[in-house]
C-alpha cells in the first residue's frame, strides 16, 4: 500500500476500469476503485477460477463488481461498529480511457494507492456525513 493522500480537487481521472459503489445512510458518497484493464482481467481470472481472462465480458465484469461490493460491504461493517450505519448501492463497472470524475458537492476524496504486481490500483473514497450534505455545508 502506498501513502494515503487527499485529492486536491475535482475533476480527477481514473484508469481504464473504474468500479463505483455508492454509500448511503449515516455517510453519503461513493467508493471508486480505479485500475488498469490488464489488472482487472487478472483479478477476474482469479475470482472466476479461470486460467486467463482476455476481455472484460459480462462474467468478468460481474466478478470485478463483486470485488467492489465485497470491499465496500466490509468497510461498512467496520463503520457500523463505530456507530456509522451505512448501506451500499449495487456496484457499477465503467470502462474507458481518461475518464473524469466530478462531484458537484465537491466532497473530499481520500485516496488509498495500492500496488498489485506491476499494476497500480487506487481506492478513492468520497464521503460526507449525510446531515452535512443536507444542510449544504461541506467541510
Amino acid at each position, binding site marked *: 500500500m502506498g501513502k494515503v493522500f487527499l485529492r486536491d480537487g475535482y475533476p480527477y481521472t481514473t484508469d481504464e476500469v473504474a468500479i463505483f459503489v455508492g454509500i448511503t445512510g449515516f455517510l453519503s458518497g461513493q467508493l471508486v476503485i480505479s485500475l488498469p484493464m490488464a489488472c482487472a482481467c487478472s483479478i477476474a481470472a482469479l475470482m472466476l477460477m479461470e486460467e486467463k481472462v482476455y476481455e472484460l465480458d459480462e462474467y468478468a465484469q460481474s*466478478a470485478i463488481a463483486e470485488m467492489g461490493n*465485497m470491499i465496500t460491504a466490509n468497510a461498512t461493517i467496520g463503520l457500523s461498529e463505530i456507530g456509522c450505519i451505512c448501506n451500499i448501492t449495487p456496484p457499477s463497472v465503467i470502462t474507458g480511457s481518461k475518464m473524469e470524475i466530478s462531484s458537484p458537492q465537491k466532497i473530499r476524496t481520500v485516496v488509498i494507492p495500492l500496488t498489485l504486481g506491476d499494476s497500480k490500483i487506487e481506492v478513492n473514497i468520497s464521503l460526507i456525513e449525510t446531515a452535512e450534505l443536507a444542510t449544504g455545508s461541506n467541510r
Partner: protein
Amino acid sequence: MGEKKQIGELGRKLPVDKLIAGDKLFDEVRGNTGGQLFMAGEVISENDIKTMKNFGVENAWVYFSDDMKTRLEPSESSPTFQTIFDDIEKDIDSLRGAVSPQSKLEPPAVSTSKTTFEAPTPATPFQQQSQKKTKQFVRSAKMKIDKVVAGMALAEEVRSISGAIIIAADTILSQDQIDRLVELGITSVFIETCDIPKELDPLRKKTVIVVDDSLFFRHMFAKMLYRMGMLVCGELKSGEEAINSALIYKPDLLVVDIHLPGIDGRDVIKKLRPRLPNTKFLAVSSHKDRDTIIESLKSGAHDFIAKPIQWDTLKPRLLKLFPADQAASSQR
C-alpha cells in the same frame, strides 16, 4: 473397462433444440453414464478418442440434428433428409453390424472448412457409407472457448471440438441453458464423467437451483456445486423466476440470496417450503449479522451461509443437509 463397445452405434436423434428442459439429459441412454453423443457428420480424431478413453467412456451414440436439413441438398439421385432417418430407423441393426468391434476410426486429414454431409444414394445404403465414415464426416465450425463457457454453467471444462461442449453425464438442463446452447450454435455435446471424491457421494446427482441477482455469484456457486457432483438445473436472478422454476423442477436443494430485487429470498423460502417438502433450502447473504441469520432461519431455511462462500465452508454444510445414511436409503 470391460468389453469394448462399438463407436458409431446409431441411436435415436437428440438434437440440441429438441432437448426437453427438466428431463434428464439423454434419457434414451439412461444407465449409460459416461456415454458420449456425437453428431452425425462429425470427424472423430485421435485426440477425441484419447479424450474419451481418459474419461472412461465406453459407449458412443451418433445422432442427427435438425440443422443438418439446411446443409443437405436433396437431389434426384439422393434421398431426402427424412428418408435418411427412415432408413436409419429400419436398418439400425444392420448399421450396428457395419461397425465391427475391431474397427478403429483413423484420424482423417482434418479439414477446417465446412463441407456438407453427403446424403447416401438409394443405390448405396447407409451402411456402406458408414464404412467410409472417416472421409464423410466433417467438423463444424469451432466455437470460441470463452463464449461457450459463458453459456454453460455446468461445464467445468470446455473443449472447442467441433463446436461441442462437455457436460456431466446425467445432467439436467434448464430451458435457459438449452436456449443458450442453440443461441451459441452448439449442435453437439460430449458427456463427461466427473471425478468426484468418495466423501461427496451423498451429493452426487442432487439437483440444485441457485438464485442470486449477481451473475458472478450464480456462476461461481454453480461451478462449486458441479465440482461436488451436484446437478445445477437453474441459475436464476429473481425470486419470481425461482418460485416458478422450483415448482417445475422440484430440486433437491434451493440456494437463495436473502436480498433479491422484487420478491426477496425469505419470501421465496416461505412460499416454497410448504409446497416442496423434500427440498432443502440454503439461504445466503453478504450480510452476516445476527438479525439476517435469524430472519433467514425463521423463514424456513435449513441453513445459512455468509458470502463470500469458501469451498471448505460449503462442503460440510451440504453434507449436513444431505447426510450419507439418507443418501443410501433414497438412492435413485
